[in-house]
């Protein structure tokens, strides 16, 4: 039986054994292969990495990782310990929206041919505090940033227009107050 695969921004139906929305932050050695070690821990335990941001730390000897993950909730504490156990991982913490600031950035390329549609779109962009970063006769690129649910909401509204493609950075997280990220 053939199946048509469509791209959409709809979330997959919720499953009891899957948890989404968990955000892990890791401080790691900035060396080749470190990401492989971490990814193997998730893959072996049937976890999916929904988003991943890696960047050099303030001290270039280290890197920052932010992972958005989903998988069996019972396994999560053990996964964190396994990551922490890696020699190349300085620390691994889980963050919730309550104890941290989570931000994401999305670029959305949309077909715009008529002036009326363009005006409507610009109203949405303004409402979400976004910005038009590229504009030509046939399309525009919109930048939206904020908490993931805000980015989700903006893209949902734009879905009634003809979206060519979207790119999201994935979540970056920083712990509030004196907690380490």
């Amino acid at each position, binding site marked *: 039986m053939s199946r048509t695969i469509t791209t959409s921004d709809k979330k997959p139906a919720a499953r009891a054994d899957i948890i989404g929305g968990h955000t892990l932050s890791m401080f790691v050695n900035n060396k080749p292969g470190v990401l492989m070690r971490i990814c193997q821990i998730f893959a*072996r335990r049937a976890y999916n990495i929904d988003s991943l941001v890696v960047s050099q730390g303030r001290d270039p000897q280290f890197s920052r990782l932010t992972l958005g993950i989903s998988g069996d909730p019972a396994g999560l*504490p053990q996964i964190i310990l396994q990551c922490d156990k890696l020699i190349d991982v300085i620390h691994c913490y889980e963050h919730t929206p309550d104890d941290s600031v989570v931000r994401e950035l999305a670029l959305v390329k949309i077909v715009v041919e008529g002036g009326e549609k363009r005006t409507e779109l610009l109203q949405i962009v303004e409402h979400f505090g976004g910005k038009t970063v590229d504009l030509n006769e046939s399309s525009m690129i919109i930048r939206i940033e904020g908490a993931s649910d805000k980015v989700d909401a903006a893209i949902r509204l734009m879905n009634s227009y003809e979206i060519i493609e979207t790119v999201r950075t994935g979540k970056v997280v920083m712990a509030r107050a004196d907690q380490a990220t």
Partner: protein
Amino acid sequence: MAIEKEEELDGAQALIKTLSELGVEYVFGYSGGAALPIFDALETVESNIKFVLTRHEQGATHMADGYARATGKPGVVLVTSGPGAGNTITGIMTAQMDSVPMIIVSGQQVTWMLGKDAFQEADIFGITIPIVKHNYLVRETNDLPKVAREAFHIATTGRPGPVLIDVPKNVSQSPFTGDLDAEIDLPGYKPEEAMDIDSSSLEAAARLINLAKKPVILAGHGAMIAGAEAELMELANRTESPVTSTLLGKGVFPESHPLSVGMLGMHGTAYANKAICECDLLINVGSRFDDRIIGQADKFCAQAKIIHFEIDNAEVGKMIVPDVAVVGDAKVALTQLLPMIEQADNADWLEHINGYKKKYPLGYKKQGGLRMQQVLDDIYELTDGEAIITTDVGQHQMWAAQFYLNSASFKWISSGGAGTMGFGFPAAIGAQFACPDETVIAVAGDGGFQMTLCEIATAVIHKLPIKILVLNNHYLGMVRQWQELFFDNRESGVDLEGNPDFVKLAEAYGCKGINIKRPADVKKKLQEALDYNEGPILINAECVKTDNVFPMIPAGAALEDMLIEPPKHKMAKPVGST
């Protein structure tokens, strides 16, 4: 010719010099193109390192493993790139599963060819990530001494494990201009924290222990690695607890001691498993609650409190969620715990367990041919339980665990977690190199022995007086046992027809060989083997073909569902694996 000045060293020489300074006595390995500079450095650098040429790289890893388990010092392996490194996988995995310190140095293609499918190129760094404690692909010649020091530090501290160092040929043969004493730099690794035990966890543990009326101590490999034998004995005496051990913990508490109930788990003693089922407190010192010992996790010690002494934080709550976890080194933890422990009087409980010992002793039939159990029982008696025993995996391993009681640590060398066939004989070679004055007995089945028997040559060359005891039933007996019990006795892939004449085979290598066929001859022939010390001796014992190991807990079943003797009715297929 010895190298004197540091400025004349190349990377390989700096590496060998560092290994020598780290106290390496033996390097087990197999040469090859990409490792040529390192092999050359073994000749040009003055050191106490002796190189042992094996006949297969898997053998080299198991020898290093046996050396490490007999001494507590890391075993060192040197191989070439590609297939050479690939052949070490099983041995590295075996060491990782059983927390064995090991350093594997592998040659590698030159750095500018990596990723280009060059001759004998394999991404051994990537391949081994899941089976090492840590690994390195060294890209700078001057990093070699620092990497070697870091590898040793990582392999031997905290929970030990294997560390692989992959060295491209241009890195090893370029001039070394760095610091031979470069300090290690591991900001993400703090094994010293294991010496700092949380006092509130110790107090909570002491409260549970002082309240217990039916305690049991479970002694694991971690207690042995920590060197906590005396503390464990004191804890057992003060709490009047029966002590059971895991397969790898055999010997950390003397199995001939009245408080010992032997090994627990799938093929453990009935009295150990009954003690676990009936206790009100389980004190686990240094075991990771392997699935072979817990059976059905939600029924394991369901009525009892559980204390878990564990050095690896990631093991706490992985299989069993304890009531109290004490994270850190077992010796340090027990030393700090003992002053808080009151002298218990659990005479009734011990009497009850002794009743089980009398009711369900380990035994075997004396008629109907030669039994593996008898051979093991006799060799135990002839060696007073003092020999170093290495085993392969299968029925002979479980019977050896049951019948060869160990009285001291580091004398039982067996592949537990990985269950690696072919492990026992090369591990015995490593152990004999480590302990030249000890009696070393490699207990193998006819299946596993044939996987690494080429190492007879290695044992013969070095005149190692190993007793190679091949318990030969012409079957892969443990698998056949499962097929008999759970698959209507349909034998599939278990008949080892075509076995060689093992005595003739040994003789072809210049190794002495003898046969044992009759139960009445066992002691005499074994004594003959024990008295022969000119080199290795192979003892081929022709055993009953279709014997089964009991007691048995089918995989995934609860300990209370243990089969003490053969079942009278057909068994359901087990839910757990193997």
